[in-house]
């Protein structure tokens, strides 16, 4: 029996062609809201993105789509045709939230600004997620993941400490091969939405949230910005990191972070390395000295890391309370006893019977726990159901929309 979520009873309409808007709406559904995803007649773009079980493209089995759209119902409407658009507006007039996520020019062109939608429905909260926002000198710029990660400062900062670039002039800034900016903006969009809901309980009216993906990236780097604000932007190849060792080093089977900035950690680390003679040298006698003489220390530590696997180093070090850790593969993470025991991954089953997992919800709320209320919708699965339930449309009215197969 599914219990209620914190947002049970609230209604959300989503119209977006980006990860950010989809994920924002999913998070509201995760908290129990009734989320209706409005897709164009040919379906959301991420139905065509994969990965697919067995590698065979199938719009109902795209992994990214399934992940972004659980806890939603699905409706197909061509909001650019006048008869479908009125159904879209009717849905919006029933909703507490409208989540939109497009490039800003599309938001304007499709008439998705709150001033056009909320005249008769002042309670409506419109959450709009765009690459550079709806206002400001660059608001009309086109953008995506790569552009947001770059213009938000994250690409320049990557690799980050204790990793560093070899040659800062030749080695390009880097993103991760994920939809990180989309998730960052999606979570912050959900925060802004629920904050607006709390405001609405006080003032009675909704509002328009204008969230910029560029800013959603910059907003999660407060320490990086603090460096620029109080000193200068962190160089991509810093000389030393204050006290050492705090280094990212190769080991026998991969890479490992070796961190022993506290004196106790350093002594424990040297004990693991069988207390070599050089450990007693004056030039390595404190964290600051070890930073100053890092060029001499690094090859000595490398001898130790290269004699062990990442797993060995992690085990040895963590037993002594030293924060060392190897770069895990995705498989090592998924199969780890920790992830398994915390029951973090969700078991999925494709229609063909293939079993796989997807990441679960990273927050555990004791009284309003996350639940998989429903899997992602098939294309148009709930068009008739929602138009009837929300709007009382008759079967004839629904058929006349031409957005649902008889």
């Amino acid at each position, binding site marked *: 029996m599914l219990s209620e979520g914190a947002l049970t009873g609230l209604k959300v309409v989503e119209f977006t062609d980006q990860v950010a808007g989809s994920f924002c709406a999913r998070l509201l559904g995760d908290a129990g809201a009734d989320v209706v995803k409005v897709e164009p007649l040919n379906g959301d773009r991420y139905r065509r993105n994969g990965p697919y079980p067995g590698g065979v493209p199938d719009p109902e089995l795209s992994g990214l789509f399934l992940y972004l759209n659980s806890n939603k119902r699905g409706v197909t409407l061509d909001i650019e045709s006048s008869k479908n658009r009125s159904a879209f507006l009717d849905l919006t007039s029933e909703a507490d939230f409208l989540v939109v996520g497009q490039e800003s020019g599309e938001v304007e062109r499709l008439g998705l600004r709150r001033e056009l939608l909320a005249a008769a429905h002042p309670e409506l909260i419109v959450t709009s997620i765009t690459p550079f926002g709806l206002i400001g000198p660059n608001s009309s710029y086109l953008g995506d993941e*790569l552009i947001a990660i770059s213009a938000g400062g994250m690409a320049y900062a990557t690799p980050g400490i204790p990793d560093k670039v070899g040659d800062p002039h030749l080695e*390009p800034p880097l993103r991760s*091969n994920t939809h990180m900016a989309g998730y960052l903006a999606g979570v912050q969009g959900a925060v*802004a939405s629920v904050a607006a809901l709390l405001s609405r309980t006080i003032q009675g009216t909704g509002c328009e*949230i204008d969230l910029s993906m560029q800013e959603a990236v910059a907003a999660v780097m407060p320490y990086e910005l603090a460096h620029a604000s109080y000193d200068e932007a962190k160089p991509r190849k810093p000389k030393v990191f204050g006290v050492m060792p705090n280094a990212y080093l190769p080991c026998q089977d991969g890479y490992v972070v070796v961190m022993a900035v506290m004196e106790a950690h350093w002594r424990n680390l040297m004990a693991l390395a069988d207390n070599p003679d050089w450990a007693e040298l004056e030039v390595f006698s404190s964290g600051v000295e070890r930073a100053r003489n890092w060029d001499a220390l690094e090859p000595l530590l490398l001898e130790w890391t290269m004699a062990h696997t990442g797993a060995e180093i992690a085990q040895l070090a963590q037993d002594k309370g030293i924060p060392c850790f190897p*770069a895990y593969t995705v498989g090592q*993470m998924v199969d780890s006893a920790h992830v398994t025991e915390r029951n973090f991954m969700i078991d999925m089953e494709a229609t063909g019977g293939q079993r796989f*997992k997807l990441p679960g919800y*990273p927050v555990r*709320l004791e009284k309003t726990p996350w639940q998989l209320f429903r899997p992602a919708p098939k294309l148009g699965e709930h068009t008739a159901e929602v138009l009837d339930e929300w709007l009382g449309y008759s079967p004839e009215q629904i058929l006349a929309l031409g957005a649902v197969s008889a």
Partner: protein
Amino acid sequence: MSTLPLKGIRIADFGQIIAVPYTAQMLAWLGAEVVLIETEQRLTTRIWPPFAEAEPGVNRSGGFNLVNTSKMSCTLNLRDPEGVDLAKQIIAVSDVVMENYSSGTMDRMGLGYDDVRPLRPDVVYLSLGAFGRTGPMKDLVGFHSVINLFSGLASVTGHKGSHPRIMGGLFPDAFSGCYCILAMLEALYHRANTGEGQHIEVAMTEVLATLLPEAVMEYTLDGTEPERVGNRHQYKVPHNVFRCQGQEKWVAISVESDAQFQALAQVAGIPGWADDHRFANAEARLKHQDELEPLIQEWTMGLQVEDVVQILQLSGVPAGPVLDSAQVLADPHMIDRGFVQSPNHREVGQRPMGTFSWNVDGDRPGVPMTAPLLGEHNRKVVQELLQVPDDEFERLLANGVIS
């Protein structure tokens, strides 16, 4: 301007370093009254660089001052039972408790969820840990690098054929903080509707693992591990950062459609693009990106970053500057939108910082106020809020319970 939604909510903030302090700061911007409980014997960011004018001082650290704006500071010695008792009194008049000490620390101090519920039955109590509060790795020391490495994120970050890399910006803390804020707002909404508080637990490693649905799906279907692809994309080509004129200047260009590619090739003067079969469509470009990227870089190398962005955006091609953190704070667009704010600080003056990533009806909500000096609000918190009489306050001060 929208009403600040958390007016009347009080938060006891036991946050350490970035993650929970960042969370509580955002809740303060939304109107909550945040009491930051600090212990002078175990300061962190206050005594770490960067310092204003490189001059160390507990009130001079950017790392502290820019994640603790709009709060009150109360310094209690939590190693002294009387200090813990004062902390309990603060909790008793608070709606929310938040902490990210290492697992078990709050319990050992007598400030765990079960300890404080009798004092405040409807408390919303949030605990955040690198690996969470349960599971075999709950006690592991986890800095941002460890979280990057464990979660698998590093394994999908890196240049083609090269090793896993660590993402920059110490972002696991603040990203986890975003989930904490969301959970907190939901829990407060639930409490407003039902009167019921609750416990919230967050693991930073799990927050990062949410970035990898495709990789987790592929691994669990057939054991496939992702390849590292640098800045490239599964179907957009070109999709990379390119060098521009100057030192360490880069521009990001991302092309999704043939029309965008034609616009790019035209302004970049890529020879023969119109009839070059290598670049004729997305599929061909995907195959020939090793040849295409140097042609684009040849063009960008002769231009300033801003010029490339302007030219391409005017031609309908997605492009953006690769900004460093100083450029983020100086960006005219983000300044105009209100993202960059410069609260005044009594010791170090005005310093720019980032705020929320959104406007509400055209205004930036919750403009940050100054960060507190160490122990600045001891009297306000202990005497006014807890109603501790003068002579008792002086005794606690003399005994080092309050510092």
